[in-house]
């Protein structure tokens, strides 16, 4: 090897090294940009949450949860609001899950692939983007006056159920799509009918995904204010709905469905608009509580998905 050749290799080597350095720098650069983007979202939430906690911490005690609203900020509590939220969520869950899962299953398993199915598919995705107040207006006309359900827990639950329906449908379909074709074919091969395949395999394996979708939908619904205000939720209600369980046969009653109610975001909204600053502390505490509940729900969704996935071995 001549010295010139050696020199040119070395020169090239330097060029290659420079190129590698450049690419590594780009890698780093993108990682940094990504991190900043992530932090932007996270820090905003964190700042908001810390701010709420700092404002609201004097009210974090059991009494806050067991007191009814009051004109005195110090003795005003969340009891009717959290019970209202819980009952509304119960109705939402009971309506959105069966309807959403059935619709998702149908679209994915049974619906013929033609323009009509495509149309429905597009519309389901579109529904997910409809502003929530539109659902409130629909519910006001349909449930409150059309069906005469009144401004009740039932109406609110159904409204929020409709609101999260697209989320449940889409997540059901995603979950079903994740099931390998081989599983299906194996079931068909041993002579299972379509319904047997769906009920014994498809639904079973997609549970995790469906559940995640449902919980994420519910955690959206619990913070919704606009549609609930539109249907006419109350602000001051210092008694609880009748109990769903009674001491006489048949031990269950549905009167609570018909009861007036308020929910956490509305209570917060009301306190925030008061002149008295002591109420703003209550509002901050309520805000922090809503965020914690939402985080807990989303956390549960992630945990369940992880756990259920771990148990499934294809």
């Amino acid at each position, binding site marked *: 090897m001549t010295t010139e050749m050696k020199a040119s290799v070395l020169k090239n080597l330097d060029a290659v090294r420079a190129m590698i350095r450049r690419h590594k720098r780009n890698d780093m650069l993108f990682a940094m940009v990504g991190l900043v983007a992530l932090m932007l979202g996270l820090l905003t939430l964190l700042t908001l949450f810390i701010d709420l906690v700092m404002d609201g911490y004097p009210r974090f005690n059991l009494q806050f949860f067991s007191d009814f609203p009051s004109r005195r900020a110090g003795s005003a509590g969340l009891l009717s609001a959290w019970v209202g939220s819980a009952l509304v969520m119960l109705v939402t869950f009971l309506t959105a899950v069966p309807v959403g899962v059935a619709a998702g299953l149908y679209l994915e398993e049974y619906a013929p692939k033609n323009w009509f199915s495509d149309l429905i598919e597009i519309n389901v995705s579109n529904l997910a983007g409809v502003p929530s107040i539109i659902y409130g207006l629909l519910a006001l006309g349909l449930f409150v006056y059309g069906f005469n359900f009144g401004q009740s827990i039932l109406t609110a639950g159904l409204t929020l159920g409709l609101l999260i329906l697209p989320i449940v449908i889409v997540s059901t379909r995603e979950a079903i799509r994740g099931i390998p074709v081989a599983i299906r074919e194996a079931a068909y091969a041993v002579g299972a009918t379509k319904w047997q395949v769906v009920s014994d395999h498809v639904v079973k394996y997609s549970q995790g995904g469906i559940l995640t979708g449902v919980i994420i939908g519910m955690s959206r619904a619990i913070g919704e204010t606009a549609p609930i205000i539109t249907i*006419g939720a109350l602000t001051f209600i210092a*008694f609880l*709905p009748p109990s769903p369980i009674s001491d006489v046969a048949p031990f269950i009653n549905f009167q609570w469905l018909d009861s007036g109610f308020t929910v956490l975001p509305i209570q917060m909204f009301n306190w925030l608009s008061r002149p008295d600053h002591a109420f703003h502390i209550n509002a901050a505490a309520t805000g922090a509580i809503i965020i914690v509940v939402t985080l807990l729900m989303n956390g549960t969704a992630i945990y369940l998905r992880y756990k259920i996935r771990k148990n499934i071995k294809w």
Partner: protein
Amino acid sequence: MNKKLGMAVIIAAAFTSGYASAADKVIKIDGSSTVYPVTEAVAEEFQIATKNKVTVGESGTGSGFKKFCRGETDISNASRPIAQKEMDACKEAGIQFIELPIAFDALTVVVNSKNDWVKSLSVEELKKMWEPKSSVKNWKQVNAAYPDKALALFGPGTASGTFDYFTEAINGKSKASRTDYTPSEDDNVLVQGVSGNTGGLAYFGYAYYEENKDKLRAIPISAKAGSPAVMPSPEAVKDGTYQPLARPIFIYVNATSAAFKPEVKAFVNYYLEHAPTLVKEVKYVPLTTEDYAAVKEHFKALKPGTGFGGKNEVGIKVKDLINRIK
């Protein structure tokens, strides 16, 4: 699955412990968010005292009347008198109402606490600022003695009863206002707006000023240029000198409910009985003792109708109002 069932039982059990059944009578109230604090205070005390149930909503005076005239509520809170359209709707549904003034609110004009040039404002000056198509953009344009400082106006949204009353009292016509101001349905936003802007000016209910005295300055108002300017205060409202921005606020009681539902009757009586203390507690101005007595008599007689004839009126006396309804 068992865990889930267990959870359900626990949640269900939380609701079981002896809460009353739906057969219980509930007094339903909705309407103005301005009147809400007063009615809420009364409802709270009434429930403790009598074990009757009361629910109060705050969907606004207009929406409140809509529900009231469909017969959905027993009582409607209102920060302005019932309008002709609403009276027609009630009439069509066969619903009669009893109009009861229950307190005063003083609309308060506030400026930033650093604003040291405004000593008082007359109705004319306010009109100059707020009238439709007003071109006033600077304090200098209001009064040549004021400094050259941009004027930033804040006020309630057009759906508010406060907006209706202020425009009626200042501009002479309900809902007639310039539109290029910063509106918000949330009075705390208005407070923030003015406290953050040296040239800011806003109007809202007295209670919001009372709670934010450290950040804002209330302006004495003179009814005419040259007449003495009056600072908003409970006393000035009571003796009728704070004009034209003191307004009565009302509850409208469904006459059928008042006559045939003993709990509604009891509630209204309790309301009028305890208004003097409770109204003061939520930072509104109570009527005079004689006025409350007159209102009580009026309710006792169950006389339906309104003293306003479907129009808002500025500076009316409670006694005259009641005497109009025969």
